[in-house]
């Protein structure tokens, strides 16, 4: 036994390799067809037949045109809209064909500078607001496409949106509450507010 373990020669290796070539090629072709063609196609057929809405991106239509996806965040800059989290996608924020995080290390001076600028912009847009600024509202998300903000981040923006729209704080609060999702199964993840859906709902509110 010791001989076969250590006393091997190059010709033996070569013979073994030659012998393995045909099964390797054939098995590769067969398993490629099964896992690379049949499996994704069957999954697509099942998904398209059973859950076409989700399989096609959970797209939201408004007045016949597609305005976005429930799962993909968008950039909002006008005062009357709730703003999403900072996004690091290039060349512009919330580019859904180029997902990316900022990848700034915790002590990178560029991170501190970015936080300062974002906080200043929020304070300037709503000078009387003295609430603490929620961390998620001034930090870049992992995907650059985060569709959500925390309930605290929505709360912070309430007065600005109410003022810009000339609506009462209570009616905006009501909208936030309607669009707040709890933890899934009461346990998983975090409570959150879908920014695009909230803004679309605000736009379709009947003006008093």
């Amino acid at each position, binding site marked *: 036994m010791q001989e*076969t373990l250590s006393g091997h020669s190059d010709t033996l*290796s070569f013979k*073994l*390799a030659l*012998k*393995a070539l045909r*099964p*390797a090629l*054939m*098995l*590769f072709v067969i*398993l490629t067809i*099964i*896992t*690379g063609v049949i499996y*994704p196609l069957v*999954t697509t057929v099942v*998904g*398209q037949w*059973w859950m076409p809405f*989700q*399989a096609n*991106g959970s797209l939201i239509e408004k007045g016949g045109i597609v*305005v*976005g996806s429930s*799962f993909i965040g968008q950039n909002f800059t006008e005062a009357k809209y709730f703003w999403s989290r900072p996004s690091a996608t290039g060349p512009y*924020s919330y580019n*859904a064909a*180029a*997902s990316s*995080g*900022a*990848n*700034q*290390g915790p*002590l990178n001076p560029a991170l*501190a500078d970015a*936080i300062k600028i974002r*906080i200043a912009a929020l304070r300037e847009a709503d000078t009387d607001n003295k609430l603490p*600024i*929620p961390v*998620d509202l001034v930090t*870049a*998300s*992992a*995907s650059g*496409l*985060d569709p959500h*903000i*925390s309930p*605290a981040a929505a709360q912070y923006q309430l007065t600005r949106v109410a003022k810009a729209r000339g609506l009462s704080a209570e009616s905006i609060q009501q909208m936030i509450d309607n669009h707040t999702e709890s*933890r*899934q*199964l009461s*346990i*998983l*993840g*975090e*409570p959150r507010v879908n920014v695009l859906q909230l803004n679309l709902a605000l*736009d379709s509110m009947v003006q008093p």
Partner: protein
Amino acid sequence: MLSNMVVQVGLFFITLLVLTKPMGLWLSAVMHGECKFINKVGGPVERAIYRLIGTSPEGEMGWRQYAVAVMIFNVVGAIFIYFLQRWQLNLPLNPQQFPAVSVDSSINTAISFVTNTNWQGYAGEATMSYLTQMLGLTVQNFLSAATGIAVLFALIRGFARHTSKTIGNFWVDATRSTLYVLLPLSFLLAVALIGQGVIQNFDAYQEVTTINPTSYITKDAAGKDITQTTNTQTIAMGPVASQEAIKMLGTNGGGFFNANSAHPFENPTPLSNFLEMLAIFLIPAGLCFAFGKMVGDKRQGWTIFSAMFIIFIVMVAATLWAEQSGNPVLTANGADQTAVVTESGFALQSGGNMEGKETRFGIVSSALFATITTAASCGAVNAMHDSLTPIGGLVTMWQMQLGEVVFGGVGSGLYTMLIYAVLAVFIAGLMIGRTPEYLGKKIETYEMQMTALIILVTPLLVLIGTALAVSVADGVVGIANPGAHGFSEVLYALSSAANNNGSAFAGLSANTPFYNSLLAVAMFFGRFGIIIPVLAIAGSMAAKKRIPVSVGTMPTHGPLFVILLIGAVILVGALTYIPALALGPVVEQLQMLNI
């Protein structure tokens, strides 16, 4: 906040514990053709495959033949993916008309996916056609995982058999693990993920009209800054769910999109996140049980499982604590990082270090995911590891450096852990002055030589590779963050590649000829430099006689051996890597304490 943290993490642990035994029973039954139902349904398919490839399930291989089969099969796979990427423009299913991937990136990606690393130097949604994703990357997600399972079963047979010249048939092991384990689980998970919102289609990217136009600064043809405004958003599409499922189950980790499992279309909800985390650990945990069953002593499997589980709990606790404690820089600049909960128990914000994390996952689901993905050799990420706190970065990096033995990659985690068990037995044998034995087999010079080789190969690749990268201009130029963190980016990249993880401190610009080549070398030798000596040990163990248990036999089950095993893993990992870690995350943590 704390209570939800405990409940979320506890739910994960309990679900994993509950599923370990059924998964293990399934694995050991189907891999040995002992499941009647599977034999009836899959038997004809299996026999047809064996006829086509010209093998018979009874025709077993010696370890050298097995190793040659593994190598040839993987080399064929790598060559195929290389050309698929190079020719993708002229092939179908390329709605975005992506051009051929560069030579160095194609080589890197081919080796990356074949070695179960799934390091990604490229951005998926801007580089790879749908055909490349499914026919190349999805396929290797299956086959590299199947290779890992096959090699593990060969090693287990080495322990379980005696005076045998063979350790199994690679073609049979690869076929069965693909058809009966990976494929059905992937299909179920893919459908569940679609239900949560993961996409699965072959459409071109969707143009949607946004309600608030976005202005941005870009350069015109003359290189001057100009402001542009767009009110369209282009949303990437593709057959994502099918790839996502096997990406997690096979501990592969190569995302369809650049942002990986942080992308809402890969991981849209907290529930999809939970399923993905579970999928990473499911097969590695089950394999522990299968191991115990196959060597005829289930306690052996549970002992290994316990050692892994204990290390894991400590690592999770450290990451959770660090990420929830947050980054003092954020507070100093005016951001509120406290976890705010209303009186009725409703969490208004998770607080903590939210840079590089998604709101729906918050701190708990992100920190747990980060720990799982680096404990296993998965490397999928749902948060940007480059933005983790220094301790979070340290834990994730160190877990990879330990050889990913905490559940680890499918197959690879357990076969590496079994090598550590051999080492633990050897060290204990030295201490008490007896010939070391493991599972009734004497551990002798040849096995210890191979064990030493396995334990040395990845540190060599990681440390020499890092030293090289930080010494040459081509390496330094890729670093994104200043200071100690920049060093961590390089150390993380090499640790990830050599241990076949695939996650990254992604600020590092690694899609360059230098990093593509360096990391390809690390991935290749980090994978096969271990598989071949593991198979050599399998062959030598299988050939040995079994010695009966006597009063002098040191038991390799029970709490004492769990401690010994943990000790061996931590000792080797600490001695090897503390100097390098001291230059990166440790320095960074000390700097952070001064803020």
